[in-house]
C-alpha cells in the first residue's frame, strides 16, 4: 500500500517544525507540490555482511548468549538459524516476527538491527575448524564470572528504542526455545548523538569520549581491520566493571593522565580536537611525556602496536542489586583476526594500562560473526546448509 498523502504530510510537517526551531525556513507544503519521499530509518537486514557492524551505535542494545540444548544437532541448528533469519528480516523492517504474540510492539524506523554470532560449538556441529580462538586467555586483571562468559550462540539486538529491543529479544529467545537456552544476557545504552543532532563518538560512564581511535567506516583501513576473507568478522564481548567511587576521587588532571586525552573533547593531551593525532614524543616543561607511558590512549594506539587495530563499539551498563549499583561498559570489539589483532593489544593493556586500577573485566566471550544473507538465504547457510 502506498503511504497516503496524510501520512506523508504528517511526516513532512513534523520535520518542518524541527526546522523552525533550528532557525531554518518553515517549509510549506502546498497541495500541488509532490510530497517528498519519506525517509526510512530501517536498516536493511539483508546484505553481504551483517549490517549492525557498520551502522551507527544504537541507543539501546541487548546481548543474549545461548547454550545449545543437548539434542540440537547440525540439522536442528540450521532450522533455528532459518527461523532467526526470518525474525531478523521482519523485525528489522518493523514487522512483527512470524507468530509474534505481541505484534503491536514491532515498530518501524527505530534503526533496529540484529547480529548473530557463533561460539565454538557451532563449528563443532558443522564439522569445521573455527578460524580463531574459541576463548581468550585469562588476563592478570580479569575476575571472570561464568555467568557473563562463553556461549554457543549470540544474538545482539540494537535499536534507538528500548521497547523495540526488548520485544525483539523476547522473540529470539522464544523461537530458540526448542533448540537453545539463554546462558547470559547483558543490556546497555549509548548516546552517539550530540545536542545538535549530529553523530558523536559517545562517552562511557567515566565521562571519557570512548572510541575515538576507531578506523572510520567506509575506509580501506576499516575493511582491513574488520572483515575476514569470508565476509565475516569476530566479536569479543568483555563486561568491564568500572569503579566509579575511586575514579571520582581523582582530580580531573589525574583522570586525563590515565587515558592521555582531555575529558572535555576527547582530544589528546597534545592536541586540541578529538581526532588530532597523538604526539607520543611530546614532553612537558619538566621533560615528562605529555601522554604518559601508561596512558590508555598511548598503549592502545596502533603506532605502538605494530599497526594493529580493532573496531570498538560500547554499551554502558548499570546493574542494580537492591540499592547497590554496579556501573560498567560492555566492551565490544570487532576484528578480522582475534589472535593477530585483539590479543596482543589486550595483553599489552593488561600489563600496563593505567586504567586497570579502576576497571575489572568480569565477563569475556568470543564469537565468530558470519557473513550476512540475501533474500531466500539465511544466516550461517554456508557453514550449516
Amino acid at each position, binding site marked *: *500500500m*502506498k*503511504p497516503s498523502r496524510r*501520512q*506523508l504530510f*504528517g*511526516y513532512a510537517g*513534523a*520535520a518542518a*517544525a*524541527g526546522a523552525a*526551531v*533550528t532557525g531554518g525556513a518553515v517549509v510549506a507544503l502546498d497541495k500541488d507540490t509532490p510530497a517528498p519521499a*519519506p525517509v*526510512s*530509518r*530501517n536498516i536493511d537486514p539483508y546484505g553481504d555482511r551483517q549490517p549492525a557492524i557498520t551502522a551507527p551505535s544504537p541507543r539501546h542494545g541487548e546481548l543474549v548468549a545461548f547454550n545449545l540444548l543437548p539434542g540440537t544437532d547440525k540439522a*536442528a541448528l540450521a*532450522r*533455528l538459524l*532459518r*527461523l532467526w533469519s*526470518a525474525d531478523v*528480516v*521482519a523485525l528489522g*523492517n*518493523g*514487522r*512483527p*516476527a*512470524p*507468530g509474534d*504474540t505481541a505484534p503491536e510492539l514491532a*515498530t*518501524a*524506523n*527505530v534503526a533496529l538491527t540484529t547480529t548473530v554470532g557463533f561460539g565454538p560449538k557451532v563449528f563443532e556441529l558443522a564439522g569445521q575448524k573455527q578460524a580463531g580462538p574459541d576463548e581468550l586467555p585469562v588476563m592478570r586483571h580479569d575476575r571472570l564470572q561464568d555467568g557473563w562468559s562463553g556461549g554457543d550462540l549470540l544474538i545482539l539486538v540494537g535499536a*534507538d*528504542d528500548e521497547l523495540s529491543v526488548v520485544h525483539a529479544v523476547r522473540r529470539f529467545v*522464544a*523461537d530458540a*526455545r*526448542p*533448540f537453545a537456552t539463554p546462558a547470559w544476557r547483558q543490556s546497555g545504552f549509548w548516546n552517539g548523538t550530540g*545536542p545538535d*543532532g549530529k553523530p558523536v563518538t559517545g562517552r562511557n560512564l567515566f565521562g571519557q569520549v570512548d572510541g575515538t581511535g576507531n578506523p572510520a567506516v567506509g575506509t580501506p583501513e576499516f575493511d582491513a581491520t574488520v572483515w575476514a576473507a569470508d565476509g565475516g568478522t569476530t566479536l569479543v564481548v568483555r563486561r568491564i566493571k568500572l569503579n566509579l567511587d575511586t575514579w571520582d576521587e581523582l582530580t580531573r588532571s589525574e583522570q586525563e593522565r590515565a587515558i592521555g586525552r582531555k575529558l572535555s573533547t576527547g582530544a589528546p593531551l597534545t592536541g586540541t580536537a578529538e581526532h588530532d593525532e597523538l604526539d607520543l614524543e611530546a614532553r612537558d616543561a619538566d621533560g615528562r611525556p605529555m601522554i604518559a607511558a601508561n596512558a590508555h590512549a598511548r598503549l592502545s594506539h596502533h603506532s605502538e602496536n605494530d599497526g594493529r587495530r580493532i573496531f570498538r563499539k560500547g554499551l554502558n551498563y548499570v546493574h542494580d542489586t537492591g540499592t547497590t549499583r554496579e556501573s560498567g561498559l560492555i566492551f565490544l570489539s570487532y576484528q578480522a583476526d582475534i589472535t593477530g589483532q585483539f590479543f596482543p593489544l589486550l595483553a599489552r593493556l593488561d600489563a600496563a594500562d593505567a586504567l586497570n586500577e579502576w576497571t575489572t573485566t568480569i565477563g569475556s566471550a568470543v564469537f565468530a560473526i558470519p557473513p550476512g544473507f540475501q533474500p531466500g538465504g539465511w544466516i550461517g547457510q554456508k557453514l550449516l546448509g
Partner: protein
Amino acid sequence: MKLLAATIAVALPVLLSSCGTAEAPKPVAAAQTPRVLIEDAWVRATVGTKDTTMTAAFMALTNPGNADIKLISATSPVAGMVQLHEMAMKDGKMVMQEKAGGVSVPAASHAHLSPGGDHIMLMDLKKPLKPGDEVPLTLKFSDNTTHDLTVPVKAFTEEEEHYHPTPTAK
C-alpha cells in the same frame, strides 16, 4: 536546547504504516508480471493442543504487479488435506469456512493470512507438529505460479481451539 532535543525526538520517528511492510511496492508494467512475494510464513504447533490433527499456516503475501492475483490452493506432505479458509459471521457466530475462489492478493497491495483471519488450513496431520519443526508447503496462484516454501512451526495459543472443528466425524 531541551526544546530542540524534544522536537527532534518528535520529528524523527513518525511512522508510515503500510499494511505491515515499510517499503511500498511499486506497480510495474504488466509485461513483467512479477510473482507474489511471500514473507513471514509460519505454522502453529499442535503438540499439547486439544486437536493435534489440524493446524493452520499464516503469512504475508505481497503482489508487486498491477493485476490482482489469487492464491488458489495449497498442499503439504504433512497434511492429508489442505484448504484455504476464512472466518465469517454466521447467525451471530464467528465460524470458519472454506474461502470460495481463494485468497485475493490485490495489485500493488498485500494479503495477510493471520490467526483469526484468512488462513491455510492443514487437516489430517500425519503427526503432531512441534515448535522447531519445519513443514514443506506448496502454494498455487492464479498467475500459474507455484511457490515451494519451507515453513517453521511455532508455538502459539489460538483464541478458541474449537473454531477449527474436526472435519470428519469419528
